[in-house]
Each structure stands twice: as structure tokens, then as C-alpha cells.
């Protein structure tokens, strides 16, 4: 089983680093192959909305930077993890620049799915999705936005299971480990 971790943390963010380390440890202990991408160190340019991934060479981004590999890494995984400082209730720029590059994984055509209009699937199977939001301390209002965003992403990314959770700057390593374990268990990755 393969997992891809998209780490959208900022330089010097120790809580995100701890969360990624304990996440990798727990997945590997359970037999997962883990590929972590520290997005701030990668050459990933923003999606320019050219739509060539739909109308010129279907399924492939025409960019020449490292963002080109994001859709393939995502779709060939069994689990995708979004790790990000909670930014106005959403994702950081670093994570979002990678997520915006994933539209080749769906088709341009629309259909009704779960009562709403969405882009149709390109692939038969999509990975489970978990999102770990990093906050200095609990803030209910932004956590609600973050959970709603992950719920919506799970629909558009056709995730067979998904969960969102939080780690806090006030927590020690053992508490963060427990938090990450709880999030993983929600999508059936761990007992």
C-alpha cells in the first residue's frame, strides 16, 4: 500500500514537522510505502488554467516543473495526506499550489454526483484522503471551515473514505502521535 504526503508547511514550523514524522512512522510500522513531498522546497508553479490537460493531452499536465508529477503520484496512491497550517480556515499557499495542479485526474465533462454537478471520474479508483490541519491552539470557527473544505475535496477527488483532524502547537510529540493515529483510524488505515 502506498501513501503520498503533501506537506504544505512553512519553514520553521516544528509542529508540522513533528506531525509528518509521526505520520510517516505510523504508516511505515503498518507496512505502508510512504512518499513525502516537502512542497516548499519543490519547483511547483501555480496552475495557469490552460486546460491543455483536458483538451490537448488528456490526463497530463503540460507544465515542465515538478508540479507535473503531482497528479500521477496522487492517483497511484492508496492514501493521500494533506498536511497544512490552517490558513483562513483553508490550506496554505504551499499545499494549494500542488492541489491546483490535480485537475488532470478528472474529466472535463460534468455529471450529477451526490446530488450536485461535478467533473466526471477519469480513473476507476482514487485514494482515501486525510487532511491534517496545524494550528497553534484550537479555534472552532476555522476548524469548521477546514472540515467543510476537506468534505468538499473528498467529493471532487472521489475519495472512498476521508477524515480531517488537527494538531496543535501546544501539544507534545506523544499527543500529536495519538492525534495522527486517531485521524488514520477514521479512514480504516489503522485499527
Amino acid at each position: 500500500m502506498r501513501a503520498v504526503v503533501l506537506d504544505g508547511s512553512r519553514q520553521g514550523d516544528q509542529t508540522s514537522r513533528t506531525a509528518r514524522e509521526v505520520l510517516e512512522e505510523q504508516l511505515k510500522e503498518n507496512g505502508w510505502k510512504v512518499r513525502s513531498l516537502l512542497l516548499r522546497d519543490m519547483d511547483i508553479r501555480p496552475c495557469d488554467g490552460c486546460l491543455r490537460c483536458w483538451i490537448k493531452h488528456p490526463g497530463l499536465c503540460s507544465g515542465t516543473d515538478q508540479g507535473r508529477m503531482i497528479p500521477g503520484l496522487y492517483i497511484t496512491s492508496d492514501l493521500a495526506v494533506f498536511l497544512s497550517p490552517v490558513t483562513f480556515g483553508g490550506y496554505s499557499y504551499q499545499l494549494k499550489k500542488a492541489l491546483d495542479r490535480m485537475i488532470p485526474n478528472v474529466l472535463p465533462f460534468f455529471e450529477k454526483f451526490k446530488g450536485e454537478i461535478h467533473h466526471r471520474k477519469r480513473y476507476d479508483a482514487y485514494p482515501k484522503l486525510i487532511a491534517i490541519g496545524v494550528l497553534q491552539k484550537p479555534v472552532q470557527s476555522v476548524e469548521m471551515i477546514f472540515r467543510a473544505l476537506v468534505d468538499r475535496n473528498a467529493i471532487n477527488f472521489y475519495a472512498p473514505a476521508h477524515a480531517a483532524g488537527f494538531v496543535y502547537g501546544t501539544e507534545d510529540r506523544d499527543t500529536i502521535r495519538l492525534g495522527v493515529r486517531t485521524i488514520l483510524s477514521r479512514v480504516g488505515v489503522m485499527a
Partner: protein
Amino acid sequence: MTGHLQRVLLLIGSPRGSQSTSASLGSYLLSEMEKQGAETGVINLYQYMKSDVGRNDLMDAVNQADILVFVSPLYIDCLPAPVIAALEMIRDRRMVAQPPWRQRLIALVNSGFPEPEQNTTALAIYKQFAKEAEFGWAGGLAFAPGAVINGKPLGDAGFVARNARKSLEIAAGALARGGPVPSGAVKLADKPLVPIWMFLLNANRSWKHQVKDPAVWKEMEKRPFRKTN
């Protein structure tokens, strides 16, 4: 327009810049505010966020405005990455210094999906940004689906854009009076421009016109990646 002459800054967060549907929507609001005496300016966030000079110019423009109008497409259920980068920078710099007068912010979201619920998180993120960056939240409007407008000036977009135009006219009037975006403007923006069945038919057919090469059309559902163990 009540009070002093208001300076309104439109911040376009689309990679298509002035050719985008986002620009069509924002420009229409700006023109309505100009009719009421506002002084207006336009910034393309994708361009300005590319350099230190651009980022500084962006902050100067933000610091001179009374009303900021953010407009962007819906990307993966929220804002495009460069818009998030701009919001992060504006918030961080305003924590150091900001103008002494109360600045207000309105957000417009241009979505490819007909259901207004799909824009809720994007508008919530703009609202949270307004709170953290200490702007007064004047409200948000989500327009669906923007593809029907396809970058045309809203005034030239005909009957299908009537609700969008009316919504923006109502919003401009309310902003000029110092108030928030009224619920009537929100309801009009939320109305699908065309019935859902017509949207599905037209949107799916439209790709056939955009794909010029018949060989590409045959491969539209190609799956270039395969799982390996």
C-alpha cells in the same frame, strides 16, 4: 454616494487576468460604483505576486483603498493558490502597519458549478481573511456557472447574465451607501444562469468545440497513470 469619494480596488485572482470571467464580474461592479462617484483601480494578483516590486505595489494599492473587491474563480473548492499567497502576505503586513481608517472587503467567486453550496467554503475563507487582516466584511457573492459568461463583458453577455448584472448593481448601491451586500443581491447571484439540464447539455457539448484534433477527442478519457506495486 454618501460620505467622501470612495476608492475601490478590484483584485483579480484569475490566471486569465483581464480576459477572465472573474474580471467581467469585477469590472461590472466597478463600473456601477464609478456611476456613483467612486474612484477605482484594478490589480491582477497573478502578475503582482510574481515579484518583490509587484508585492510592494500591491500593498501600496491596498493601503490606499476604502473598499477591496476580491474576485476569483473556484479552484478545488477554494481560492487559487496565488490568491492565498496574496491573502497571507496582506494579513502579515497589516499586522505590522495598516491605514487608520476602516477598510471594507467584498469577495466575488466565479464558479464552474451551478449549485451555490459549492462556493460556501471559498466565501468562508475570504470572510476569515477579512477578520484576521482586520478588514470590515461587506459580504460575498458567488456566481454560477461562470462558463456561460466566458470572459465577455457582462454588459454584452445578454439575457443569461441578467441576474449577475442585477445582483452587482444592488451590491454596488449598498456598498456606496456604506452598507453590506444585501440578501437580495446574494439570492440573485445564487440563481443558476441556465437550468441544470441545459447547463449539463451545453457544458458537455462545449468540449467538442474546444478539442480541435479528432485524435485527441478519441482519447479524452485516457488514463496515463497506472498503479504498480
